[in-house]
């Protein structure tokens, strides 16, 4: 498609910062009718902020948003909606107790005599649902739907408003392959109906098959704004990370196997069933599979954070499972959650308070907290992990990568012997990723057992001695070092037989 048409929505040199951290620095982007525009960038590159500016949810510090070439005065969500902009965000906007139809129509109900016209609502909602392949009854409460289906309701909700501009923020992250396929068809169809589409995704193959044009953000700056035709995956990655992807991972190291740290048989927790697993000191064991197959429950169960059971279990030489987080900590287990904002850190508290939290009470003098010793400990942790600046600042002022470092570093004073890491590099910039990889290797070399759950398959391939692939709560494949390849992991996750993979 050519770009000689005038843009429906245009952002001009937008800048925005939070807590003194600039997130976007002079970003411009133009969305054209009928063009599928990809927005790429690592987590933390500023994509979400850009979306929020385009949808009026945030006000830019500098720059402006133009609609149909006209400058907008007071640009808020209402003005954005009036301009025909619909956004499907990762955080769903649905109400659990209301029905699918009532959710889809929310904010734009058809009215008759001031009352919701359920007949018209039904027709229009059914139309929107048909577009995304939702077949559930329209009266079903959204709370009864699985996450992927809710995502489809969210998309239907956007379509119900007949948008001129549709912004999709990682729409496929919680969708099944079938649902993702339906969505691809839908995007093509909408583009042919001259809807301008902004498509954010981490799946490069998806982007290359679906999109016409790409804008790449890196650290709040546009590093590319070009047509996608003739661009290969490698060069996209290079534009995103600013270096060759090959350098990212340190060479794999194998440590001498140490004592047995974990041995469980018939382990069950949450959706996990019948897992037999053992691992030794010095190992890095990967946990892979499609999203939501019980991997997280496996870690949480071992950590004593959700009820778990096992036929036989031994952790750090003691029989039985940890029945509480406190007990798990006492056994030398430490857990770093994937969602550091909600689960990993106390965001409003200082870096220092977060770093000291697990080891509160370790540094005591006369029955009181020894503030001097605590300060020294915090300073040494900050230095060791290269966290710069005043540790009295709130953690929320830090970048994603530095937040993750705090979430990891806070465990070091407890000298854990088993580290359970849930996607530790999610939303982390490339430099910090590399630092974290080196740290993980360091931990294993020191004789710790590292269990690494990751949604990033290359990570598992390059770092792990062994990878367990989960599907529907069970371990469907255990791959040893030589056999760990992306194809093998993905194949096992998708239920392919070993022979087909080979």
């Amino acid at each position, binding site marked *: 498609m050519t770009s000689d048409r005038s843009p429906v929505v245009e952002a001009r040199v937008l800048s925005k910062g939070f807590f003194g951290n600039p997130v976007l620095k002079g970003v411009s982007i133009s969305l054209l009718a009928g063009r599928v525009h990809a927005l790429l960038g690592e987590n933390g590159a500023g994509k979400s902020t850009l979306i929020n500016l385009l949808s009026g949810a945030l006000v830019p510090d500098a720059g402006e948003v133009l609609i149909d070439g006209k400058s907008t005065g007071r640009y808020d969500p209402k003005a954005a909606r009036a301009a025909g902009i619909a956004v499907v965000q990762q955080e769903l906007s649905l109400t659990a107790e209301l029905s699918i139809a009532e959710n889809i129509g929310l904010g734009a109900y058809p009215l008759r005599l001031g009352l919701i016209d359920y007949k018209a609502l039904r027709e229009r909602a059914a139309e929107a649902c048909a577009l995304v392949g939702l077949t559930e009854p329209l009266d079903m409460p959204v709370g009864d739907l699985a996450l992927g289906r809710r995502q489809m309701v969210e998309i239907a909700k956007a379509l119900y408003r007949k948008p001129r501009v549709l912004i999709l923020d990682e729409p496929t992250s919680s969708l099944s392959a079938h649902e993702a396929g339906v969505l691809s068809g839908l995007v093509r169809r909408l583009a042919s109906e001259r809807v301008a589409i902004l498509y954010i995704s981490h799946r490069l193959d998806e982007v290359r098959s679906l999109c016409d044009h790409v804008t790449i953000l890196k650290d709040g700056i546009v590093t590319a704004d070009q047509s996608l035709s003739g661009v290969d995956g490698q060069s996209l990655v290079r534009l995103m990370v600013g270096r060759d992807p090959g350098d990212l991972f340190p060479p794999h190291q194998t440590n001498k196997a140490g004592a047995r740290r974990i041995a469980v048989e018939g382990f069950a927790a949450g959706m996990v069933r019948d897992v037999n697993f053992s691992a030794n000191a010095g190992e890095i064991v990967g946990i892979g599979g499609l999203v939501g197959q019980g991997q997280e429950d496996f870690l949480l169960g071992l*950590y004593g954070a959700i009820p778990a059971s096992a036929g036989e279990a031994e952790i750090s030489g003691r029989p039985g499972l940890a029945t509480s*987080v406190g007990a798990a900590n006492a056994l030398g287990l430490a*857990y770093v*959650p994937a969602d550091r904002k909600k689960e*990993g850190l*106390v*965001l409003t508290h200082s870096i220092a308070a977060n770093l000291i939290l697990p080891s509160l009470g370790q540094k005591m003098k006369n029955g*009181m907290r020894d503030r001097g010793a605590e300060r020294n400990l915090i300073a040494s942790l900050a230095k060791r992990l290269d966290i710069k600046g005043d540790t009295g600042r709130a953690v929320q002022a830090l970048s994603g990568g530095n937040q993750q470092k705090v979430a990891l570093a806070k465990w070091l004073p407890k000298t854990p012997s088993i580290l359970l890491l849930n996607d530790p590099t999610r939303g982390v910039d490339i430099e910090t990723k590399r630092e974290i990889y080196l740290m993980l290797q360091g931990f294993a070399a020191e004789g710790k057992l590292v269990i690494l759950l990751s949604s990033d398959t290359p990570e598992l391939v390059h770092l792990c001695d062994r990878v367990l692939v989960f599907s529907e709560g069970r371990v469907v494949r255990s791959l040893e070092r030589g056999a760990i390849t992306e194809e093998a992991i993905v194949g096992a996750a998708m239920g392919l037989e070993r022979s087909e993979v080979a």
Partner: protein
Amino acid sequence: MNVLGKLMRNPPLLTLILVVAVLVIASLTLRGFGSYGHLRYIMELAAVIGIVAAGQTLVILMGGIDLSAGAIMTVTAIMLPLLSPAFDPTGLIGIVVILAIATLIGFLNGAGAAWLGVPPIIMTLAMATFLQGLLVIVAGGSAVSVTNAAVIWLGQGRLFGISASVILWAVVSVAVIVLIHRMPIGGRFLALGANPVAAQLSGVSVTRHTLIVFALSGFFAGVAGILILGMNRQGYVGIGEPYVLTSIAAVVLGGTSILGGRGTYAGTIPGAILLVTTTALITVVNASAGWRSIMFGTLILGLLLISGREARSR
């Protein structure tokens, strides 16, 4: 401008300045308001609020709320005379027994919240209702007089010209401030209040700390109940009721976030004094009960709008 900005971000200091301003203006305009005797009287009243609010501060820091503090005070004030044995001239046995009961009631609040999963606001409200009914059944509806020597001394005695109740408040203040800022458990309360999930995954037990914090709140409400009994020399149903609102107001006026996770008892202290001073002003104005009630509610709302900015939900 910068100084003002800093001040607005330091609620305890802001509250303190408000207190001094109110006192100065009142003593200049109203006869007898600034005298030592009157100040001592204000501090005695503030001691009661300050001590209930000590427990309330801890509970609110942890993200809860205790609506049963007033009922626990009433229980203490009514039951103590019944539980003070005649053979004990000091009256200390009665105090120990009643404080144990108050702590137990608080612990039950914690048990409901931690083990049964009842939100603190419902649990403590239900507890307040339960106690209200129980008291009438156990003690009848009439007022009881106190003869317990220790209680009367706490309520009315003095040491070097300073009221015993104020000294007790000072002790409680030091203990609570140390607990929050110098003991591990204080840090854990704050973490739980700000983000219970993250705190729990960091090895902080929600159950244990909920039990402890509500037991402490019950204990402090008990202490305040003893004080108010000693001051009034009489206990009756409803004696503790006004202290639910005043304790919460003192906490929030002191800059502690009602949502938990941020604040300090150092702010609650001037908060309590500010409340008592303004209430005293209302009393001086000599209005009817209705107007007093209106002024009291309006003042609290007004003060919250000025200094409770930190408490706002977004």
